[in-house]
């Protein structure tokens, strides 16, 4: 839906080389400094969920969009749209979680705006953040090469399941915590070690499947991943099983996929002990992602259309 809106309303009006790159953020040069700039709005419900708040998300999401451009996040702006009647104490809790997230990511919140709308005109609270970062390393879909290792930074699906289970009032024996976290520390560690990262993508809406398919489409190279090597925590796997969801499609807020030359993969796995070598880029000029299933069958890992809906039986 939002993809169609972007294509039909915004792109024809605003098209330019930076926007057309369709990355998580725009990358440009000002007085010889390479900068990345990005923005995102947060309308999540519930506002507080196991493992995070809309505030953490608003900081981490923008920090991560910059990190995925190979940029060190520096400064954030923040716009609040508050619904009349929102409790000040509640707002303070959200603001405190933003402060903690900003400190953790090493960014400063340097400008902001607050608007109050009538009761019933907003779901309690919406947040928009924008961020500027300094590009430390050029990454992009165009740098993906046949043979590249596809590395997933950690176990998948926790954020989406945490949100869904809270929203639907489902309770599991052990509460599943959102994975919301700033990704710059991990990217920075890789760059510090001199790893030539070819491409980075965070695994937010649509999960790993969407990220891989979008990249396969934009680079026009097929990819192959091995389900058995894609880490999913047992609790998340069980919850997905019960809800009829596939963790490969579930949103994450603190996970990314990195593409590196195959000889660099072992070092990446050493630096990121939670990461896993999930697959390879094939030398096949097709926008297709193949998956070897856990039991050894082969299939296509296709983009999902619409939201995943739990099945009847």
């Amino acid at each position: 839906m939002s993809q169609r809106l972007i294509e039909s309303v915004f792109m024809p009006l605003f098209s330019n080389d930076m926007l057309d790159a369709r990355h998580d953020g725009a990358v440009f040069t000002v007085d010889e400094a390479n900068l990345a700039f990005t923005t995102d709005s947060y309308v999540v419900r519930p506002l507080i969920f196991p493992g995070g708040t809309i505030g953490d998300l608003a900081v981490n999401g923008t920090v991560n969009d910059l990190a995925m451009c190979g940029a060190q996040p520096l400064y954030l702006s923040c716009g609040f749209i508050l619904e009349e009647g929102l409790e000040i104490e509640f707002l303070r809790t959200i603001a405190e979680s933003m402060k903690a997230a900003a400190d953790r990511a090493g960014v400063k919140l340097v400008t902001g705006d607050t608007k109050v709308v009538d009761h019933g005109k907003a779901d309690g609270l919406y947040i928009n953040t924008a961020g500027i970062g300094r590009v430390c390393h050029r990454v992009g879909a165009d740098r993906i090469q046949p043979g590249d290792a596809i590395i997933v930074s950690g176990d998948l699906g926790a954020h989406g399941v945490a949100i869904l289970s809270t929203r639907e009032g489902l309770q599991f024996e052990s509460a599943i915590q959102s994975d919301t976290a700033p990704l710059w520390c991990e990217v920075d560690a890789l760059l510090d070690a001199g790893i030539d990262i070819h491409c980075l993508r965070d695994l937010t809406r649509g999960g790993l499947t969407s990220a891989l398919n979008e990249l396969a489409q934009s680079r026009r190279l097929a990819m192959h991943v091995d389900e058995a090597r894609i880490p999913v925590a047992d609790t998340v796997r069980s919850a997905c099983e019960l809800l009829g969801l596939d963790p490969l499609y579930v949103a994450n807020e603190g996970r990314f996929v990195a593409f590196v030359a195959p000889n660099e993969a072992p070092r990446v796995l050493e630096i990121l002990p939670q990461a896993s070598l999930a697959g390879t880029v094939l030398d096949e000029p097709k926008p297709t992602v193949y998956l070897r299933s856990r039991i050894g069958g082969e299939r296509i890992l296709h983009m999902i259309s619409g939201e995943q809906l739990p099945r009847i039986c």
Partner: protein
Amino acid sequence: MKHLDEYRDPERAGKLAAAIRQSCARPWTLMEICGGQTHTIMKSGLQTMLPDLISLVHGPGCPVCVTPIELIDKAVAIAARPEVIFTSFGDMLRVPGSHKSLQDVKAEGADIRMVYSPLDAVKIAQANPSRQIVFFAVGFETTAPANAMAVWTAEKQGVENFSVLVAHVLVPPAMEAILSSPACRIQGFLAPGHVCAITGFRDYETLAAKFRVPIVVTGFEPVDILEGVLMCVEHLESGRFDVENQYGRIVRRDGNVPAQDTVAEVFEVTERAWRGIGEIPQSGLQLRAPYAHRNAERRFPTQVGRVSEPSVCISGLVLQGVKKPVDCPAFGTRCTPDHPLGAPMVSSEGACAAYYLYAKA
């Protein structure tokens, strides 16, 4: 995950696939009845592990797929009424009626809530005494006990504002219809394990004997399905036509008798129309007289016209295993999960959607 991982074990799966290759000397066409099984087959890429001699065709066991379009239109009309809170399992929401889906009317402001259990719908009714709560009672014998329990509970607790729109269907009459068709090319069946967990498999013994086909009651995990295929092939190669129970850890010959009793208390067998297939005698459930006042069709009379499916859609033939989704000229071009022409493209359990999502080109 205990009780799951052992049925997704690559080593066991590999051994079963090898055993199937060894047992299979002639070409066989098998049908798995249940959409959940189709889903597992496609999602695990099981077809790529089987010899070319075995052709798996996909049966009508997708409740979303076989619910008639007129009933979806009724659901949409009832859900749009301001006094109604319409409750449904999630995957019914996207199914297109002749003009709109439930999701469309939800976007227009109708109060439609996704529930995981029909008893949750009864709770919603208790919490909203001034509203009318309608539950879309869809599914096979598997979901019938829980849906019957919801109706029974509402009756016992005097929850007057709770009613159900019933679209229940039964597997054995559909299998009989498929087997009786001159176009039928199915030589063996994987019967739906969860349906049999409720009903047992005596009815399937009658079918196996009448039509001389082997029927293997089969589970839903990859190892279950491979084992079901192996048993079915062994029957066919040795000319045996009886029922075998692969899913013994869940299914007994007599099924779950208390669940059957609950269903029989609330529902009775009736003729029902199947989307893409047509009327099948004795193939559905309707509320018995003491519960008939909870029939949402009666409580909210709605006029919906008879609707014809898009002529290009071959979903009826796909649901009967006569054609495969890729045989359809519209598959993947005019008909996609974004713009489904027929129900099997809507539900993730539908054969067309499973092919679209998972099949290796």
